[in-house]
């Protein structure tokens, strides 16, 4: 795999994956049965994992599969099943039309800022780095991505790494304390 050129298969994979991801994300917020929208959420997570693979982040795709598809969606489905006897469906607020307008305006503004408002050429790897540096960058993304990621996590970002582990422990203990039977 090279850093700059893309084959037709990769383009096709991108369009198929992004179509599935967007359609299932819309289904998550539109379907009335909460259990079904949780199942569509899993499809969204799988699509994002496939896009991570396209971006050369195989490790993150694996993490995505394990954490989101394996753990978070199972938690959400269990919670839905535990609270399902209310049978309330998936109702919306009365102000959902203005909220939809706000979300669409946000999307249009972001797309404007991405396409017209930013000059990406001065920042792109393919434009600013010379051939030798591009080879090095390709090596970091495709051959040595996991060792470099571990190096970053345990040297330059070690404070954030330790804080996040404390946060996970606190969240686990807090969740246990909240749902404990008294």
């Amino acid at each position, binding site marked *: 795999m090279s850093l700059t050129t893309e084959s037709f298969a990769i383009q096709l994979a991108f369009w198929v994956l992004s179509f599935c991801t967007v359609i299932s994300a819309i289904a998550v917020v539109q379907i009335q049965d909460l259990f079904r929208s949780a199942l569509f959420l899993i499809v969204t997570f799988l699509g994002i994992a496939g896009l991570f693979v396209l971006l050369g982040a195989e490790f993150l795709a694996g993490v995505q599969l394990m954490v989101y598809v394996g753990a978070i969606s199972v938690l959400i489905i269990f*919670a839905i099943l535990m609270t399902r006897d209310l049978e309330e469906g998936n109702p919306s607020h009365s102000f959902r039309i203005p909220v939809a307008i706000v979300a669409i305006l946000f999307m249009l503004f972001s797309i404007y800022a991405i396409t017209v408002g930013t000059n*990406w050429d001065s920042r792109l790897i393919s434009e600013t780095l010379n051939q030798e540096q591009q080879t090095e960058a390709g090596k970091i993304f495709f051959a040595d991505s996991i060792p470099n990621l571990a190096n970053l996590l345990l040297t330059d970002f070690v404070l954030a790494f330790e804080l996040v582990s404390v946060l996970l422990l606190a969240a686990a203990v807090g969740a246990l304390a*909240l749902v404990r039977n008294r």
Partner: protein
Amino acid sequence: MTLERFLILGAILFGIGLYGALSKKHAIAVLMSLEIMFNGVNLTAVALSRYTVPQAFETASKFLLTGHVFTVFIITVAAAEVALGLAIIIAIYRTRQSVLVTDAKELNR
């Protein structure tokens, strides 16, 4: 074009999640919409890390993977958030027999 289409996809996912998080009454639906927003942000971070050069690249080339590090942290925080959020939802469900965010308004006085 290659970078922009990933960023646009991330923005669309974030917008869909924003709509769901603000317009849904069911607390679990709000949490699911938050997950969609997290995924849009993760996609943006990984795409930026893949196609652009960070300033710290001059000191060490490993900083090209900064977006991946951010994504690892976001995924961890999202897992903690879902665990705590679902615990709170179950606790509210036990005490007041409701999972609608509009019914939990003790602080809304």
